[in-house]
């Protein structure tokens, strides 16, 4: 399935990745090639097959309802590019 530049631009926006206009055509070409290649799967008959739900063959227990974490604000904020008064900071979002 060949992708056109507009579709690539739309996907890039969905993925929040800025792609310079000059690169769109080449990128569209690469992605089209890959998608065409994976479309080999069209030939496979999967009638009645359930998608693979879980890879692991064993079942671990669930977690107990206990507070075992948190209270580590310094660690949580330590790598952040910008913080104020214990908050993460980003450009203002208009709602």
């Amino acid at each position, binding site marked *: 399935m060949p992708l056109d530049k507009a579709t690539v631009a739309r996907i890039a926006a969905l993925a929040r990745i800025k792609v310079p206009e000059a690169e769109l055509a080449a990128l569209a070409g690469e992605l089209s090639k890959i998608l065409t290649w994976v479309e080999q799967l069209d030939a496979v008959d999967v009638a009645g097959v359930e998608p693979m739900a879980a890879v692991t063959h064993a079942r671990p227990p669930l977690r107990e309802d206990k*507070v075992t*974490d948190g209270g580590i604000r310094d660690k*949580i904020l330590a790598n952040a590019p910008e913080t104020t008064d*214990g908050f993460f900071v980003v450009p203002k979002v208009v*709602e």
Partner: protein
Amino acid sequence: MSNLIKGHTGEWEVVIGLEVHAQVISKAKLFSGAATDFGAEPNTQVSTVDAAFPGMLPVLNRFCVEQAVKTGLGLDAQVNLHSVFDRKNYFYPDLPAGYQISQFSRPIVGKGKIVLDMPDGSAREIGITRLHLEQDAGKSLHDQHPSKTYVDLNRAGVALMEIVSEPDLRSAEEAGAYLRKLRAILRYLGTCDANMEEGNLRCDCNVSVRKPGGKLGTRCEIKNVNSIRFVMQAIEYEARRQIELIEEGGTVVQETRLFDSGKGVTRSMRSKEESHDYRYFPDPDLLPVTLDPAWLAKLKAELPELPDVKKARFMCDYGLSGSQASALVAEKETADAFEELQSKVSKAVSIPATATANTVINVVSFIAGERGVSPAQFISTNDVPGALILQQKNVISGRMLKEVLEGIADSKKSAEAFVAEKSLKQVTDTGAIETAIDAMLAKEPDKVADYRAGKEKLLAYFVGQVMKATQGKANPALVNELLKKKLAG
């Protein structure tokens, strides 16, 4: 009573569906061990899992599953033994992973129902489409700085139950009744505090209008309305907005709106909303949830008695009316307090349950409300049984009851002690009452004459005067009887 709204071109039907996000009562979050308490300092209840640090993984909290299943059972719903967590992918600063773990195609609970108690005594069944578990997002604060948004992830990862109703509601009143009933069920089960003011119950309203019998209109979603009153106002406003729009020749655009409670209007959200492509897929970090049927059966057997069943039992076993029973079961604590009260008092004196019910509903609720406590709290901290027993034994009159209840609340004394101290005992001594009557009648010769001439309404006045003279302590029935005798000559 018709729910239809009158427009210029005829009558309109409003179609409403509600999506409620209920915060699950649990100590820790849905997929991490951080705490869920309300009001903590920013980012102090955040684990590296909640903050979506590299290499972090979710692990499901078994108790949150139990809470969701209990809620499903309380909604008379189908519990799915096999369900799956899906990732809902979108970007927002309070969604650190860039996806929310939710349930899309295989939710933990399927179809159910809620029965509404309408004011006219009728019952309306509203369908539940599904209930699923999902993570709550953090909080974005847009008003702390002119050009920046502050992000607090304390709430990120708290367990939510999303409860979706069928579009069966037909009026703002029904929507209010639905929310009140849902709240009661959640509180009975202990699965959610259901306090909209605290934000642990949030409601999105889907509203559309159509001519009766016509096909469904385009709906608008009003997001995050945070009180029952506002839900009702928002629905009213939105229904009329849509009707006016259509009648003026316009078309309703499917969109997300916000309710401005200050102005009482809904308005369109300004964000450029191309419809979200959430790219749902099963979360590969989590295994499918498989419930053990034996465990489910045990859970079902251990469910507390729910409002509808309790109401029916109150009506059957206690002989209460529908509205009395409804009033008592609205809060589980009130219903329990009523039963305990009735049981305690009946051990000392025979008392019809309807009388106890009325006392709780009309007198106790009022007094408790004035003091800022719940009826159940009032009953548990004051000698209410004592007061009722005194009343049933005719030691105090019915009219005295309210004064006695207020008095024991203020003085923290037992009913007996308070009544003795204030000498509130009902006067039943015929001699004493006759003395009071004679004294009063002597002062009112003209009125006595009028009465004897035919103005029978004056009896009530005379009774009132005698009650005044005896500081309300005289037994009103006796006063009545003796007065009549005396006046008859």
